């Protein structure tokens, strides 16, 4: 069942407006030269940080569709009746979310780097940092989607929760402190299924 669930989540995440977070990411990056001016050296210097800010804001877009539609339509209840643990549901959703969100973001980052006049070495470093950090970001997004599921104004609340919690990823990612970033990302990815699973259970009762 868990394999079918991951396939389902990837299919759902890959249809419709999958490209929207990546497009939003590029758009945020594209705004930066207008905001700080066309100084290529300045843009190149702040490039990694800009990519991370854009990644965080883009990560907010799909949050509403990660958990709430399945809660409202009884899918989460049926999965429980089929013996799938809420933690496994959360894990499947994190994995599928990263698969549909992470690689596209890495591709979009290459375009973003060009807009920011980042050199090849800085781009590669930023891509590695995003590769390490985006699983943690996906885990955080699913967890917050689960915690806010069913609440009024959930998307606003999600933004208020996700952005501060993602600060460690932002700091270590933008600074290319890969080991520390990997530690944070691993912590989030390992802990998220349990927190999100508990939130799904709490929403049911």
């Amino acid at each position, binding site marked *: 069942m868990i394999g079918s669930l991951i396939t389902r989540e990837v299919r759902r995440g890959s249809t419709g407006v999958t490209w929207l977070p990546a497009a939003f990411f590029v758009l945020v990056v594209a705004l930066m030269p207008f905001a700080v001016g066309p100084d290529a050296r300045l843009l190149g210097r702040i490039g990694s940080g800009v990519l991370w800010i854009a990644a965080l804001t883009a990560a907010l877009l799909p949050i509403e569709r990660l958990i709430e539609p399945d809660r409202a*339509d009884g*899918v989460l209840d049926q999965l429980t009746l089929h013996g799938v643990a809420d933690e496994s549901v959360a894990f499947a959703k994190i994995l599928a979310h990263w698969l549909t969100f992470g690689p596209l973001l890495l591709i979009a980052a290459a375009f973003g780097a060009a807009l920011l006049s980042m050199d090849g070495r800085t781009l590669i470093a930023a891509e590695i940092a995003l590769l390490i950090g985006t699983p943690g970001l996906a885990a955080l997004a699913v967890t917050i989607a689960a915690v806010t599921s069913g609440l009024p104004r959930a998307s606003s609340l999600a933004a208020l929760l996700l952005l501060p919690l993602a600060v460690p990823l932002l700091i270590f990612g933008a600074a290319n402190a890969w080991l520390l970033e990997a530690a944070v990302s691993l912590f989030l990815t390992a802990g998220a299924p349990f927190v999100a699973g508990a939130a799904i259970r709490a929403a049911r009762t």
Partner: protein
Amino acid sequence: MSALLRFEGVSLRRGGRLLFEELDLEVGPGEALQVTGPNGSGKSSLLRLAAGLLRAERGKVQAAEVALADDHAALDRELTLRKALQFWGGQVDAAMDALGLAPLAKVPVRLLSSGQLKRATLARVAASAAPLWLLDEPLNALDADGLERLSRLIAAHRERGGAVLAASHQPLSGDWRRMELS
């Protein structure tokens, strides 16, 4: 033969309100129990307790494997009906035939009417191998043909040794035990 569902001294409180207290019930193989009662009396909550989706404040609930049909279809709206049902497994084609859904097999779930969606929800339950069916307001949105097919489906399930617990404010046709929640 052992019961497929047993409540022993079960109490449930939701939103600070006591829905029922010290409730005992038992449903054995081949039996059907209809729970009646006014809106908000706890019929749906009783079904969710039986499904293990809610926890009793007090008492013990024991249930065999269950299949639940409530007002949530739990079917992927973008898939065709057959593919959406196949996600949950079981004897999908037989269940679709039994509920007159075979002609709709290739229709996306999002295009189904409310009555067709109700049949699809019941087909999800009928396709499962679960011996205990939990049906929440199963008659809602069904036409005369749908009611007839549901009756036949329930009768066949009971003949196979299955059991049904249904919450409905409308009378269900056939041989049902009835229990009222106040």
